């Protein structure tokens, strides 16, 4: 049987007040896959990290647009978050846990680690002076609820 595809795109100004809207929009879009509460939290956190990065690093809180494309194919959710900001010179370094170029802004360098931990797969494409695109995949509705292991 052919897997049904469903797609949605949003474009919004790179302003911090849109961060909440962006993650809620993606969470609402994926609701037809019957995600668990934990899966919803995972996706919201990953989207929030990527969008926040576009706003504070990509555009350095100046004007710009953030683009989100979501695609569901079967039970797999794909989310891409893109900006046309300053780009990342060294992607490998940027993805290291605790690496941040804005420690003075109280950034902790955990964003990429959270995206990697909460999604099944992550790809980063970036070009200095052109922008950055984060693509993330997650299979929904199959992971059992594990709760909080102490």
């Amino acid at each position, binding site marked *: 049987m052919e897997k049904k595809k469903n797609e949605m795109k949003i474009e919004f100004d790179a302003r911090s007040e849109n961060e909440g809207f962006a993650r809620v929009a993606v969470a609402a879009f994926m609701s037809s896959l019957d995600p668990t509460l934990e899966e919803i939290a995972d996706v919201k956190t990953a989207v*929030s*990290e990527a969008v926040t990065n576009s706003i504070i690093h990509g555009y350095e809180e100046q004007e710009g647009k953030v683009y989100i494309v979501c695609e569901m194919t079967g039970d797999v959710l794909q989310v891409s978050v893109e900006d046309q900001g300053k780009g990342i010179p060294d992607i490998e370094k940027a993805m290291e846990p605790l690496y941040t170029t804005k420690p003075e802004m*109280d950034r*902790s360098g*955990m*964003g990429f680690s959270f995206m990697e931990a909460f999604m099944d797969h992550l790809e980063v494409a970036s070009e200095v002076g052109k922008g950055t695109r984060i693509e993330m995949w997650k299979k929904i509705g199959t992971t059992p609820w594990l709760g909080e292991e102490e």
Partner: protein
Amino acid sequence: MEEDFKVIENYLMVRMPEELDHHKSVAIRETADRMILREDVKNIVFDFEDTRFMDSSGIGVIMGRYKTIHCLGGQVFAIHADGQIKRILRMSGLKGIIEVLD
């Protein structure tokens, strides 16, 4: 905003917002730092009772305040954190340096 910050003895109590992201973190940072300087604050308690969402911006808020409080010889506490928040605290390593209480 100011009503979410209270000083009891030398403890600064901060009521965290429902969604703790970059947008919300900026004002919390500024107000907390102002109160740590102005009042006689040694310890800080972050109350997550109302918080349903937190990303790395929340880690930055706690970590940044921890640095100041640690220098003052005080302690940082997180209370009423739900499963999502605790998971983020644990993954960031913050659970090892602050007191997470229920």
